[in-house]
């Protein structure tokens, strides 16, 4: 007897079996590859943090080792998920802050390294879907990221003064925006204002802490 492949019962059973097989297959593949994917994502985050500390061009194992050497503690703000990494590099205490914001087409993120004096030690930005050659320059252009180095972040009252602007008037706090990517640059500016605002007490606290405890390794051990 030949099956009637056009009957309703056949179609329903056929599609049900097909979907179950595919579901099992995909679940299996996902579970099997998950540990490797998680490791890749974790390594990528570590690399981005190292980029913000001006350590670039390291491959997987080197980056892992350098990260373990440099980054001492990791803290997370439970309210907004913002993370802070306390690092020691070349004998300096540097705090790396994670940032999240909106670009022109999608989310942007970044890591900003802050030195003991409340100035930018280094910066790295990432994006989801900014225009290649324009907005994407915030990630691709190392030269642009390096413009942040040495800029002052907070004024005496704790307001964020670090900004990305079209016309630089105060070179101590302002960074020239990416040409042709004003909206993405505005996004970076808003992200910096937003992410660093809630952070000033912590960073200043840590600055005072390091002044009080000259033996900074002791703090880490606690």
């Amino acid at each position: 007897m030949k099956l009637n492949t056009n009957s309703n019962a056949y179609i329903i059973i056929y599609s049900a079996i097909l979907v179950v097989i595919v579901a099992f297959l995909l679940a299996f593949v996902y579970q099997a590859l998950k540990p490797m994917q998680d490791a890749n994502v974790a390594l990528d985050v570590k690399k981005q943090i190292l980029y913000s500390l001006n350590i670039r061009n390291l491959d997987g194992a080197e980056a892992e080792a350098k990260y373990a050497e440099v980054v001492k503690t990791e803290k997370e703000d439970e309210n907004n998920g913002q993370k802070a990494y306390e690092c020691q590099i070349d004998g300096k205490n540097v705090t790396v802050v994670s940032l999240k914001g909106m670009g022109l087409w999608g989310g942007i993120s970044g890591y900003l390294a802050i030195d003991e004096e409340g100035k930018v030690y280094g910066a790295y930005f990432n994006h989801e879907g900014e225009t290649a050659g324009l907005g994407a320059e915030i990630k691709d252009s190392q030269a642009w990221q390096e413009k942040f180095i040495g800029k002052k972040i907070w004024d005496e009252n704790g307001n964020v003064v670090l900004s990305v602007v079209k016309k630089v008037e105060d070179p101590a706090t302002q960074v020239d925006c990416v040409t042709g990517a004003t909206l993405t640059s505005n996004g970076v500016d808003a992200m910096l204002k937003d992410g660093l605002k809630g952070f000033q007490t912590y960073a200043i606290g840590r600055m005072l802490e390091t002044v009080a405890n000259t033996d900074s390794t002791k703090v880490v051990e606690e």
Partner: protein
Amino acid sequence: MALFSKQNKEVFTNPLNVDHPILGQVLGICSALAVTSQLKPAIVMGLAVTVITAFSNVIISIIRNTIPNRIRIVVQLVVVAALVTIVSQILKAFAYDVSVQLSVYVGLIITNCILMGRLEAFAMQNKPWPSFLDGVGNGLGYAMILVIVGAVRELLGRGSLLGFQIVPDACYDFGYVNNGMMTMPAMALILVGCVIWVHRAYFYKEK
């Protein structure tokens, strides 16, 4: 039927010339524009599409007689979607950098017209082995254009190939500037147009 009979050879070589998916049928242009700003993602994308066309063709061809006619497009989509998801997961696990560069375009292989076109036009009527050859042929035809366009765009747009600098520093000292236009999708369309022009003018043979 022999594995490499004349007929089977034609199934494999036609998509590389006369029935070329991009040059002849102008299918799958969208992703060809998006992923070709550098050579490496272009190669990976080409390979991914080749693997997916080949295997989805084989699978559909094996089950072609059991597929209910009324839901055949749904069945084809489910098979393609499953394969694309698997490839995307594998890329995330073993080639994370490239998968980040390709971003959504791996997932969008599902909507690549080359795939559905081959399944509907070829795999539904033919045995698994010719279907496999047809899939590989079409995938390679697609990959070929991606590699050509990707190489030109990376060379002129960034002065490098596969990330290695090709244009010597001396040229930049003399005032040579990378062509920023090349990094934008619009130039990929113009390049694809040029490739189609050259192909039609010199290589295209009427059936």
